[in-house]
């Protein structure tokens, strides 16, 4: 049964990954903004599925809660408020199509060149850990909610707090920008 579940999990990861890519492609290609948001939502849910098939249930649920439940709803809210139907008739890829295609090809080749070994080489026997002396603590955690919270709130507390301050700065900046525009 364990073996079967492992195989199923690996296959599920592939299925969810392909589905996420399809959602992302739909998001880029669709002409209506609301359809784009739907594609994005689908991609996000599939990424959550990828996390779940990798036994990272906490991350998967956080993905659904934060992206599907929060961020995409706000996207949809804004898209519904701003009437975009005027732009519907224009072509999808009307802006800088050629340079965009070139950039994507160059980026893809560079990515493959850099991560060739990572993608197609043999996997390392042990997981890569940022600070090996803390790995013991993570191994003790029984569930990955515990592991994540241990990482965030004890081992890497300072970087975590600094990150949240950076987000706060972005928030304040957004408020300031919006205010000056209105006056």
């Amino acid at each position, binding site marked *: 049964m364990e073996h079967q579940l492992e195989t199923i999990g690996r296959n599920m990861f592939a299925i969810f990954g392909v589905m996420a890519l399809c959602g992302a492609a739909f998001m880029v290609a669709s002409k209506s903004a609301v*359809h784009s948001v739907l594609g994005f939502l689908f991609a996000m849910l599939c990424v959550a599925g990828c996390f779940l098939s990798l036994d990272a*249930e906490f991350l998967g649920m956080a993905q659904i809660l934060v992206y599907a439940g929060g961020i995409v709803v706000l996207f949809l809210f804004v898209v519904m408020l701003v009437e975009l139907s005027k732009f519907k008739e224009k072509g999808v890829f009307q802006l800088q199509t050629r340079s965009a295609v070139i950039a994507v090809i160059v980026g893809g080749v560079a990515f493959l060149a850099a991560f060739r070994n990572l993608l197609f080489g043999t996997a390392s026997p042990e997981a890569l850990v940022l600070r090996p002396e803390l790995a013991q603590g993570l191994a003790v955690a029984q569930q990955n909610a515990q592991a994540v919270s241990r990482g965030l709130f004890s081992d890497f507390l300072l970087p975590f707090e600094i990150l949240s301050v950076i987000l706060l700065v972005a928030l304040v900046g957004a408020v300031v920008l919006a205010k000056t525009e209105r006056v």
Partner: protein
Amino acid sequence: MPIQAIPMTLTQTLVMGLLQIVVVLIAVFIMVPLLTFAERKVIGYIQVRLGATRLAGGHVGITGPMNRIMWSMGKVPMLSIVRGLPIFIADALKLITKEDIIPAKADRGVFTLAPIISVMAAFGVFAAVAYYPGVMFYLPKGFPIVGGLPFQGFITDVNVGLLFILGLASVGVYGIVLGAWASNSKYPLLGGLRSAAQIVSYEVPLTLSLLVPVLLAGSLNFKEMSILLATGKGLHPLAIIPLFIGFFVYLTCGFAETNRVPFDLPEAETELVAGFHTEYSGMKFGFFYLAEYANMIVVSALATAFFLGGHYLLPFGLQRFIPETVPFLGQPSFIFFLGKVCFILFVFLWVRATLPRYRYDQLMDVAWKYLLPLTLVNLFIAALIRFAF
């Protein structure tokens, strides 16, 4: 109650899961129409009228002779509760057989997708809800494939069950918003925008109020949390204070999340015709209806499990004062869970019959100015009780 880990093959696990899903779905499909019937009757009695009585109360039919005798004696037939009951079958038949209209200018795909998302989110949540954290009964030996195996009171035992529930519930808002947008009409759009703002706002205090039981239980697993909070073992006696406050905050936010009165602004009839589902008819409307009532049941189940002591008799962890040796009252039972769920569902109807609707600015004030600070203070108290005492 220890759960025996009987090894099951993959087929058995899948069949067992399917069986449990079917049972839960049937239970929900029975509870929802009964709830609509109860809604008519309860509101009727609160407003000093009889509610639905007429369907089986005519002078013809099976109950006709009895009714004729009752009326001739100058009395209202006393079985009026039973006599209105067939109305829920009529309701369901009406929804199924009604013409399914899609407006000409609507976005057909999204218009169809919206009720599906609503129902899927509402029903998917039941996967992680534990009605009884243990084995309810053992299937008879003769049962094909899964004979003799325990039938547990939950479909899956998710490590992060509470997050699963909150996540899926937050996906449910898409049904309303997309349905509103796809209708391509003014009133639904306004209803949808209101709904998005309302649900996103109330999700914040809702989640924070649920953090109190999470903090006190030290787990995100639905089953573990409900057992620990119900028996009250390891809880500080003062933990009743944050649980008590949290319960009322959670229930308030639950009303808002399910779009019930007094927070039913997305479908405020007086201003918005029928809000987000104005353009819907037939079973597509029925799906929204189903999702709303299923959500009510989920909110009640969560409130029961985390605040009202779940499958034990006394709420807020007071159960510890009844020793486990007391028969029935000291023992866990599914009946207690069901009774409490029904009581909270009754509160939903009670509030609907009593309170008027909030104004929109009042609605937002309640969420951001009162409930949010209250939940934060409550969370602080809970943390203090958990770690300082």
